[in-house]
């Protein structure tokens, strides 16, 4: 009996709302109500000692129209004069009765949500005031006219109207309404009701996070939130790869644009893979300066607030979720087969040895060593090896999570254990993670609450650098992995001039071993003390300890050592971070209308990392692997140590007037160890205001415009995302010997820069949250303008400066302007069981970033790729206009530009670039900005339909515009050299008789085809179906039998389609998605998984 809970509480002269808040916080009991109803009521000061909750509530509601009802896990407060508008219940016992007519029938049923039966749902008859509440089993029973309409409503769920239509059993599945205004969402250092938020915050709910079963939250979040740009880092897709996350574009050019991740209130320094996504129940993205400013310097790139599952009061909840499936390459790299390669090589030799060969059919090719004997045999027999087919296999993925949670009035707990295992699409790649999470919250007496949460993971990543593709794509398709005579694996592949080692050699067990073992705990504890009414002190402490041990061993006969000495490398890293926070909050409502919330913070963050690495070769036995350097030779080692600290003071005031006008003021001061004395401290202010327009009387009854809030914020945050010790300058070590005397030297490669200071980003954000048609269409629009100054920039100096490394300086300014739109629509309102439901959410982000100023007033810095007026990451290169043709006109034109037209260096048949400045020669001054990787717009969408227990969800992401760089197509990848020494991307290249104007001629004399970078820029547009999931809720008849509250099974296809991608469709690339450039890497995969979610 919740209402019988003994409570000790005191009320000041405050609003009823604040009294309820106080009760809620103090007791942990969940109150469910429409805040509208509480408005205008105030409370007289009073003290209660060990009073029953019901008495206290009766006292509070004495002179109001309010009453309450206890449900299984909380108290529902409602207006007893009843209104359907609020969708809350009126009860027989408390509302005016209406006479039961004899024709009435008894309707019974069970109301549930996706997790099972739902108690406390109000079931009322439309047009009347009669109603009941579902009991703890979710069941209800009431009498009503056979043609009446029942209204099912509950806080946090969408209200449903169902025609009785002579049915006597009506089971209802409630659809959660996560956009409900009274929902609280997590903000920095606290929670706020959504209606009170003044900043730009996107909230991603658990369901959206579950749509894409993935090893880390980054992959699941892709396309789900406007303004959050998530892409595979460098196109990387091996097991355990983590994507790059960018919030509102590139601000800083320096190493990190990665957002801060805050887990359960404390900064998290581990990798995305160190969090089991199954433990996450919600995720908030803080985007504007007002929201992020409270994290000071660490919030400069945006903040991801991650909340993990905690226990709730009530019965024990046991959940299991699991899935299993397989991965396959999204496609094969488009390289040549035997006959195609044979022709390419011959053309290369013809062009590289002018006059030597008579043509493709010259018999000398087969006898003069141009082709290796095995290749000659293949040519004669028509044999061709598809190396990719030999190395790919089907990868396997499985994930299991078992959770137990529950709690009593005083103690709540949640425990979960997870296991994830993914193997790659070639041998030697895998990622395995074991995770255990535990949280406990304990009330001590009346005023103190303590809690502990611990996230622990142990992961094994195998083969994070395993990449036989470099060899597989280069290997001659005319060679074979097995010796023709002995059938044994060959070492160097035939025809490779001993450059390409048989990629299959790495698959011999024990030949190539690479493992990263990573253990980590992220453990946080808090103690919360109520000091006085409204005044609370909270201590947060968190520590993160992560030992990480890496080892690799490559036998002699591997692609890594090409038959040379076997090698081994060990690295051990110990990193350790802690955060201590002292938070004081004061919350008070004055004169019923003025709500003030103050938060003060003092915090210390420290991070230390230490690592050692040693390598050696010639290991005595393959069995030793990387475990004992004593059995190796030529041992060498290195080590690193770094430590940084941030000391912070923060104050924030939230002021609200009648829930209509809201104001947030924040001030944070950060001191960073990473800057030189004198520049260590800086203060970052921000302010935000919001107006709940629909709280104005004229809109109060509007159904069309059900919600409108206008927000504006401005603030400055700083960034010291620079490595420790950067202000001190650095020497680089180098080894040398004088005869048998071996010495280690050191020389200056970086200069001290004591003037290095914070990088500041000021953001002006204007936003609107809106809801139409009683919330069927909801959304938000944000417009922002960010200015970044004293940009921290790694500046490459002219070589004559004598400083070879780029140095970090505060140079220049950038700006980002953008618009973000999120929309959610209930297209067809239904419950998904007996009525069809269809919801759509979509978001789109427009961001325009550019450099606005560089040091010393220069307008371009070619070396560092910075151009005033252009985005960061501008592509600066020559302009390709085709291929020089073997016509008299082209030859004359080339000659007039000073180009060679004879011999092996002849430009005829090579890429033709434009003499942009028309000075009659091709020179470096003909380079121009060709574009940048900045897309025109990006976004994502989710469509969800449900009927008869089935649900089908499609999640897509899209990206339009922007130039991507695929280094595969550059000669440096070794698979597009057009030299004929290695296999080549399968392209229709130029020959004297094929006057095609895009791909150049093969030339054996040229290691790289000139201007090959111009072959690597592509339109980055794509639409990718990230996942398509078909799920089914098992009917009660089955769930009852296994005593489960709910059981859902599903099948998901991940990345089944990539559409509208010129890179893929026209140029036969695999996947245009990349942060950075695409390389010769593990090909992207598509996967199919099957899973179940069960609650007992």
């Amino acid at each position, binding site marked *: 009996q919740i209402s019988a809970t003994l409570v000790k509480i005191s009320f000041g002269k405050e609003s009823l709302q604040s009294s309820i808040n106080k009760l809620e916080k103090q007791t942990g009991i969940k109150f469910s109500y429409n805040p509208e109803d509480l408005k205008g009521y105030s409370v007289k000061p009073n003290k209660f000692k060990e009073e029953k909750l019901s008495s206290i509530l009766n006292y509070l509601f004495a002179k109001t129209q309010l009453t309450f009802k206890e449900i299984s896990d909380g108290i529902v407060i409602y207006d007893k004069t009843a209104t359907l508008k609020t969708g809350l219940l009126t009860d027989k016992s408390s509302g005016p009765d209406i006479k039961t007519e004899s024709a009435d029938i008894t309707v019974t049923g069970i109301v549930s949500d996706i997790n099972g039966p739902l108690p406390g749902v109000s079931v009322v008859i439309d047009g009347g005031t009669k109603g009941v509440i579902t009991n703890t089993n979710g069941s209800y029973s009431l009498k009503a006219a056979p043609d009446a309409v029942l209204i099912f409503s509950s806080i946090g769920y969408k209200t449903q109207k169902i025609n009785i239509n002579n049915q006597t059993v009506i089971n209802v599945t409630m659809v959660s309404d996560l956009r409900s205004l009274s929902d609280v969402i997590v903000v920095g250092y606290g929670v706020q009701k959504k209606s009170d938020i003044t900043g730009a915050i996107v909230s991603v709910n658990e369901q959206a996070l579950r749509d894409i079963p993935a090893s880390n939250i980054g992959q699941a979040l892709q396309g789900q939130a406007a303004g959050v740009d998530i892409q595979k880092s460098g196109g990387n897709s091996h097991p355990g790869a983590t994507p790059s996350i960018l919030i509102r574009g590139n601000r800083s050019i320096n190493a990190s644009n990665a957002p801060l991740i805050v887990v359960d209130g404390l900064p998290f320094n581990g990798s995305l893979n160190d969090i089991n996504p199954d433990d996450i129940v919600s995720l908030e993205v803080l985007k504007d300066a007002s929201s992020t400013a409270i994290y000071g310097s660490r919030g400069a790139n945006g903040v991801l607030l991650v909340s993990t599952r905690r226990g709730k009061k009530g019965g024990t909840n046991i959940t299991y979720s699991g899935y299993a499936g397989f991965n396959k390459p999204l496609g094969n790299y488009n390289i040549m087969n035997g006959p195609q390669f044979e022709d390419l090589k011959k053309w290369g030799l013809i062009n590289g040895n002018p006059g030597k060969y008579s043509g493709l059919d010259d018999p000398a090719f087969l006898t003069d060593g141009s082709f290796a004997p095995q290749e000659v045999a293949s040519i004669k027999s028509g044999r061709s090896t598809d190396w990719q087919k030999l190395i790919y296999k089907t990868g396997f993925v499985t994930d299991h999570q078992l959770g137990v949670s529950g709690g009593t009035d005083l103690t709540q707990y949640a425990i979960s254990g997870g296991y994830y295992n993914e193997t790659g699409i070639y041998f030697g790649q895998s990622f395995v993670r074991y995770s255990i999470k535990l949280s406990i919250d304990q009330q001590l007496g009346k005023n103190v609450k303590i809690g502990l949460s611990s996230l622990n993971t142990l992961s094994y990543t195998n083969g994070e650098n395993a990449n036989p593709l470099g060899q597989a794509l280069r290997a001659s398709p005319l060679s074979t992995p097995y010796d023709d005579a002995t059938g044994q694996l060959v070492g160097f592949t035939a025809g490779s001039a001993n450059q390409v080692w048989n990629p299959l050699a790495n698959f011999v067990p024990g030949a190539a071993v690479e493992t990263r073992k990573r253990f980590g705990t992220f453990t946080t504890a808090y103690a919360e003390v109520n000091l006085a009414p409204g005044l609370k002190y909270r201590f947060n402490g968190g520590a993160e300890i992560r030992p990480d041990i890496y080892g690799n061993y490559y036998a002699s006969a591997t692609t890594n050592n090409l*038959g040379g000495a076997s090698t081994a490398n060990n690295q051990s890293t110990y990193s350790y971070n802690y955060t201590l926070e002292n938070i004081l909050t004061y919350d008070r409502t004055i004169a019923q209308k003025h709500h003030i919330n103050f938060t003060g913070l003092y915090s210390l963050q420290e991070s230390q990392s230490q690592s050692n690495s040693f390598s050696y070769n010639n290991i005595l036995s393959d069995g030793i692997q990387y475990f004992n350097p004593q059995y190796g*030779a030529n041992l060498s080692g290195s080590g690193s140590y770094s430590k940084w600290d941030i000391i912070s003071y923060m104050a924030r005031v939230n002021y609200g007037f009648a829930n209509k006008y809201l104001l947030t003021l924040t001030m944070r001061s950060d001191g960073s160890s990473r800057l030189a004395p004198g520049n260590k401290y800086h203060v970052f202010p921000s302010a935000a205001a919001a107006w709940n327009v629909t709280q104005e009387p004229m809109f109060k009854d509007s159904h069309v415009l059900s919600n409108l809030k206008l927000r504006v914020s401005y603030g400055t945050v700083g960034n010291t995302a620079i490595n420790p*010790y950067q202000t001190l300058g650095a020497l680089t070590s*180098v080894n040398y010997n*004088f*005869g*048998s005397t071996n010495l280690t030297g050191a020389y200056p490669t970086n200069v*001290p820069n004591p003037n290095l200071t914070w990088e500041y980003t000021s953001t002006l954000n204007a936003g609107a949250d809106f809801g139409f048609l009683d919330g069927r269409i909801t959304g938000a629009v944000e417009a922002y303008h960010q200015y970044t100054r004293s940009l921290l920039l790694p500046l490459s100096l002219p070589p004559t400066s004598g400083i070879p490394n780029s140095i970090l300086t505060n140079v220049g300014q950038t700006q980002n302007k953008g618009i973000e739109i999120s929309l959610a629509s209930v297209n067809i309102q239904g419950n998904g069981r007996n009525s069809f439901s269809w919801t759509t959410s979509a978001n789109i982000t427009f961001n325009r970033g550019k450099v606005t100023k560089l040091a010393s007033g220069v307008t371009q810095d070619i070396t560092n790729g910075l151009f005033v007026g252009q985005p960061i990451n501008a592509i600066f290169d020559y302009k390709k206009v085709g291929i020089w043709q073997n016509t008299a006109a082209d030859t004359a034109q080339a000659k007039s530009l000073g180009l*060679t037209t004879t011999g092996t260096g002849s430009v005829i048949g090579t890429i033709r670039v434009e003499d942009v400045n028309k000075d009659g020669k091709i020179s470096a001054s003909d380079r121009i900005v060709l574009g940048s990787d900045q897309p025109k717009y990006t976004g994502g969408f989710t469509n969800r339909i449900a009927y008869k227990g089935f649900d089908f969800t499609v999640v897509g992401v899209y990206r339009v515009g922007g130039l991507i760089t695929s280094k595969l197509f550059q000669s440096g990848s070794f698979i597009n050299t057009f030299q004929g020494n290695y296999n080549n991307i399968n392209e229709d290249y130029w020959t004297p008789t094929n006057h095609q104007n895009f791909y150049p001629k093969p030339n054996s004399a040229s*290691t790289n085809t000139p201007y090959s970078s111009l072959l690597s820029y592509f339109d980055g547009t794509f639409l990718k179906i990230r996942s398509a999931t078909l799920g089914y809720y098992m009917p009660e008849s089955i769930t009852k039998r296994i005593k489960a509250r709910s059981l859902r099974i599903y099948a998901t296809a991940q990345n089944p389609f990539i559409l509208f991608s010129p890179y893929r469709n026209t140029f036969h690339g695999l996947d245009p998605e990349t942060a950075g450039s695409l390389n010769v890497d593990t090909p992207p995969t598509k996967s199919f998984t099957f899973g179940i979610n069960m609650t007992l």
Partner: protein
Amino acid sequence: CKKTLVEAPKSTLTPAFFTTTQGFQAGLTAAYAGFRTIWGPDTYFEMTVPGTDEFIAGNDGNNGLVKYNSNFNTADGIVAGIWKNCYTYINTCNGLIDNAPSGLDAATKASLIGEAKFLRANYYFILVQFWGDVTLNKSFQATPTTSATRAPMADVYTFIIQDLKDAIAALPTGPLTNGVQPGRATKAAAEHMLAKVYLTRAGSSAKQADDYKNAYTNAIDLITNVAPGAGLKLQQDFGKVFAEGNETNSEILWTVQHTTTLAYNGSATQNNSGPDNLLCHLFVPKYEVQPGMQRSTLYGRPYIRVVPTHWLTDTVFKERVNDQRYNKTFQTMWLCNNAASIPNWPNPLPAGAPAGAQPGAPKYTVGDTAIWMPGYAMTSSQIAGYRYQVIPPGKYSIALSPAMIKYFDTKRPDQNSPSSRPIIIYRLAETYLIAAEALYMDGRATDAVSYINAVRERAAYPSGNVVAMDITADKLSLDFILDERSRELCGELVRWLDLVRTGKLLERVKLHNTDGKSNIKPFHVLRPIPQTQIDATITGTPYPQNPGW
């Protein structure tokens, strides 16, 4: 709290360390190590060996820089790498010279500074020869700069000469002097270099009236006074100069060091990158695809970056009876090392097959000759009389030609490993040739003869006629001296600079270099200022490019 924010690096060194005694030693070691990225990789090699009258690009050679075609432009990475490397280590030397710690005794300090100045002079000498007017940083660059200007060549030469004079005064006598470690700078090396610097300036637009005189004065002082006192003399056998295991011989003045302790040899992974010694691979032809052959550590890794010009093998080295250097410079015979690819005699036997040939039987066995390059023309019927492949000069190709063996290293841990042999930069034989060239150019041909003859006489060892090697003053010409330098020094990373110094680059490339003859233009005597330099000079006046580029 204040203390919490103070940084104390533990795993990295900061420039402050540079001003301690230990730091000075470490900096000097690094300044030496910088030469490993010049002498050893294929970059400086491509800038000096091919593109001359001696060598053209091989099968896997460069298709721009060494052919003077339009692929060679200001973006060339080879040129940019050498440029950057020089300036990085010049700054190291500047730091040493400017900030020498006070804790050292005067003599040690002077000697260490002398080493630093010798090294700095070498880096600047490379710059001024390839690029002409260059930025002259005389002191340590403690603050970052994005501007730069070019100093007149004359100033750079003056600076180099002063450094070398200071070094000569401070350094120990020679590499064999007691207590001098191999690879260290010595007075002998500095004096050799000073002679070469004067000789080179004399051939430039910055020439001074007494340059030739100063060149031979220093060279002759080294030959007649310094060397004998320091135990330095020409090796009796030309072949021994480069013999494996004889890396600290009496002829060597200065080397870039490498070691069989692989952690200190070059790149950390010994993967033929960065500071590794690759010279062992660069001249190796594609013998491995020939019948009866496969790759071996003995014959080397066929990078085949260059092959000799016909002029080099057939004209310059034409005399092979008294002059023994051809056979000690080139490999012309390969012994069968692969039973699997030994060819069989056809049936019926071809006309002129040697006695003992059996149809269907292997032509030879492992250990027999598989390839032979006689070095003179043979008729096809003569060739038919051999069991193995005979390649006369007319059949030389960019894949298979005589292999220059001075850098071969047969003791590498495996067939693809880089070399661990030191690389000779200066040797006494060149001092003789410098003396001869300077004397001749100064109008003293008669005096020059004895120096050139000293080198030629040694070349006759062991079986040649020493007297027949001697030449007389009337035979002497600049062309003869250049030819003699080829016979003595071919492949030793000096030729392109020799041709520029003597003003013969265009003439000789047009005559002998089939790659570059139709492409080379007068502006090619200077390398382009790297685009990276021009692009990064974003403040002050734009960095000027060399004319014609």
